[in-house]
């Protein structure tokens, strides 16, 4: 089943001359892991922000379960249907890791009481490698890698249909990375959700079911040639 469908999506930042995204079409199925690669500044984060309903594309359309993101309640879409891991995490810095996760559950309207939410959030944080002592600290006082994992736990906390993650393993060591990738694979293959990952990491592209590359505002199927392959 198609989860997200891009139809000639174009986007230009206000005031900018060039299109960042130039007529992109693609479709993302439930039950699969997708990887999107591309050079820095190629527009990967921009594409993800459109898919997560944070902004609306200039022309073209993005459909979620057949409905245009223009028409649906995008707040509810973000709260319930999409789980987003931001490149810069975007966590509440003054709150604990645990609260960031339980608040997300609260906003999504998950039917759990506050204790239930705490238990579930704690379990999820353990799963991504954040123990309860770390979880009870303010995000401000966590390392980059820890913050990244809190972001991942938050994105998964409300059991969304589509997980959209911007370089989710960028700050992690190889061992943790593979543990996280296993979780994403389980979400897609086990729970039948759609997982879209932006990445520079080969281990990510290696485990993905499909790989796209973004270049000059266009999305191409298959892995882009890597810069270092030209060098020698």
């Amino acid at each position, binding site marked *: 089943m198609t989860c997200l469908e891009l139809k000639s999506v174009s986007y230009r930042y206000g005031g900018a001359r060039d299109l960042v995204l130039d007529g992109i079409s693609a479709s993302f199925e439930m039950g699969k892991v997708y990887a999107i690669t591309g050079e820095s500044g190629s527009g990967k984060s921009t594409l993800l922000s459109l898919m*997560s309903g944070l902004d609306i594309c200039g022309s073209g359309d993005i459909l979620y379960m057949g409905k245009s993101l223009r028409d649906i309640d995008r707040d509810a879409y973000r*709260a319930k249907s999409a789980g987003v891991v931001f490149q810069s995490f*975007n966590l509440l*810095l003054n709150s604990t890791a645990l609260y960031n996760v339980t608040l997300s559950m*609260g*906003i999504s309207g998950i039917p759990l009481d506050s204790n239930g939410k705490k238990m579930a959030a704690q379990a999820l944080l353990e799963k991504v490698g954040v123990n309860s002592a770390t979880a009870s600290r303010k995000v401000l006082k966590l390392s980059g890698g820890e913050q990244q994992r809190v972001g991942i736990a938050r994105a998964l906390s409300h059991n969304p249909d589509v997980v959209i993650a911007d370089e989710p393993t960028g700050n992690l060591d190889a061992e943790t990375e593979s543990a996280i990738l296993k979780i994403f694979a389980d979400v897609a293959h086990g729970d039948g959700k759609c997982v879209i990952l932006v990445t520079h990491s080969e281990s990510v592209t290696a485990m993905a079911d499909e790989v796209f590359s973004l270049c000059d505002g266009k999305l191409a199927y298959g892995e882009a040639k890597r810069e270092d392959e030209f060098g020698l």
Partner: protein
Amino acid sequence: MPVNCAIENALLNILKNKSRNILLGVITFVIITAEVAGMSIYNASGTIVKEFKARFGSEVALTPLKKSAEGITAEQAIAFSESECLLSTDINSSLTCRSDTLKAIGQTEGRSPNIIQGRENYGGDLSNAAMRLRGGQFDKILAEGKLPAILTDVKFWNRSLLARAARPAFRAGNNDPIPSFKVGQYKNECIVSSEFAKLNQLAVGDHISVQAGLFESGTLVETSISLTIVGIYVSAPSAAYPASYQNPNNEIIADFNTVASIQKEGQTGVAVNATYCLKSPELLALFEEEIRSKGLSPDFSVTTDEAGYRRLVGPIENLNSVSLAFLLMLFALGVAVMALVSMLAIRERKYEIGVLRAMGMKKGQVALGLWVETAAVTTVCFALGMLAGGLLSQPISDTLLAASGSIPVSVSISPLTALEIFAVAIVLASIAGFVSVSQITKYEPMKILMERN
């Protein structure tokens, strides 16, 4: 539920944003404190202005312009008192007199041996009279059972005793109440001071007789008047007076008409004193027109002591308008500061708002959260401000009144005032909330987060 979690988040935020909320709280506290103080002063002074106007009115002076001017007659005094312009009237008639059988207090044999002896001793010189017969509206005193404003020299009388004297049972000399009162019923009845009664061994029910000195074409005509004592009031001890008839304890108080009617056609000697109080000084012209048409001679000028009235009411009226201006200024300042604080707060918290919006919280909920946070802080500081303002308002008011040379006034916060101030606080909080909402609406979450990055 999402709404609950927005509110819960807001309440948790109060502690997370300590310094910001303390700043907000202090501002609210200061504004509310000043607002309470100002509002209670405004209300108190407003009440006092109203009360003063009602209580004191503005006294009218009827001043003779010529020595030869004929006095105001009893009929005129009463007719004038019926004007709609008046707040109160104080009429009394008085007449100096002597008695062959009664002694006056302070009457020294050596100094004025002839005082109570013969008609020649009047000699046209009233200082030889021994006592004074004073006619107030005695029937009113008795009927109302209280001391009305119609009698002058009230400061010399023992008010509570006079009031007791006015009680029917007291008047009857036993506990049987007298069922009704009629005007003129008290003809030839009087009350005397306890000091005078003791000196002359008088009791309720006794009959006394005095001689009044009247003049008919320049000649003294003595008229004898018989009175029955219906009450004795306890008087303060007498001070020294140059003439015994000036001593208020020597006054025999009778009904106005009893005294006024002693004087027959063509006679003079009964002085009618009338003091009229206007409801407000502006009514003077109207009142003058009315009493002139009722026969006041052009030999009298009709004036008010407007300066005196202003002296009394003016400072409080000033305080009233100053405190209103202060309140309005404070309110404007409060609005401005609240708007500014919330604008800065929103800017400072743009990232947080962006994160919440990215997590799917709706604009309205984010705004509600911010409003709840502000309102909670405002409410706490409102309570503290009320307390501090309540404590401050009395000294502030005292200082202001002392500076304007007025009497001290008791200032307190009524429930209505508290409600008014609460309304002010809510308006301030809502303005803060409104600013928040309008600011949040300006930003899409993407933009908020992008700008920070």
